[in-house]
């Protein structure tokens, strides 16, 4: 199984990188752009176990290490 994990900044948290990218997009003529937020994408291969177990384990990984819940949210998909 494989987990695809997305870690994103919580909505109230300042994202200076997102802001800089937004400004660059505006400068390139993409005037319709707003609210750029930069996050992280992780792929993890999982060895054995059921889908339920995998979900449980990945949630634990996110809360322990992969996301800092003070400033970040996470979501994930588990697939083949």
């Amino acid at each position: 199984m494989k987990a695809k994990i997305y870690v994103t900044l919580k909505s109230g948290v300042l994202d200076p990188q997102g802001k800089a990218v937004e400004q660059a997009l505006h400068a390139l003529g993409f005037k319709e752009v707003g609210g750029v937020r930069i996050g992280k994408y992780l792929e993890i291969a999982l060895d054995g176990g059921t889908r339920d177990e995998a979900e449980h384990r990945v949630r634990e990984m996110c809360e322990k290490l992969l996301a800092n819940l003070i400033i970040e949210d996470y979501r994930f998909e588990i697939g083949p």
Partner: protein
Amino acid sequence: MKFAVLVFPGSNCDHDCYHVLKHVVGVSTEFLWHKETSLAGFDGVVIPGGFSYGDYLRCGAIARFSPIMKAVEAFAREGGSVIGVCNGFQILVEAGLLPGALIRNRGLKFICADVNLRVETTRTPYTAEFRKGEVLTMPIAHAEGNYTADPETLDKLKRNDQVVFRYCDASGNAADSANPNGAMENIAGIVSEGRNVLGMMPHPDRCAEKVLGSEDGLRLFKSMVNSLSESRV
């Protein structure tokens, strides 16, 4: 009295802290590799600056799970003195020993510069020998020093007198123009509720000798050592 300076892969201010404590302050000091598991015999711990684990994932996120950190957590919860400077501060917030988080500087750049700091409280072992409101000069060197916390946490920090240093101008105003990294309310350093764990982005270890331009950092280390000596009597 004996101090431990922790060493992680990527620490780069460990020798500065060791030098200041051992040769300038003159207290017994030892390096402690992050794979160690015990702090037996130590009276204080310094978590130095640097780029532990290359700052991968988030600054301090991986170092906080190093074997020695279990001992540091127990030591801190029992009231032991722990200072985290720069990356050390980042490790302490990741470990949950201090509240909040340190995110990317608002200007995105790594900033290496002297800044002015206002002493917000002298009710800590680290600042007992300063004057409240006094303006210090210390260097910063970081890209992720933008202190962030939710409103409840900020309220609690202020209510409990846990904000130790704020970035300010030369006359002591904590103005936005004197805020190098965008830290909420110009916060540069905080102490734990138990007042024994200090985290700060500026480097007292880099301003502890006259030849380096300022001795403000030395006063912080001396204050810590003197407070610890008094509490032992």
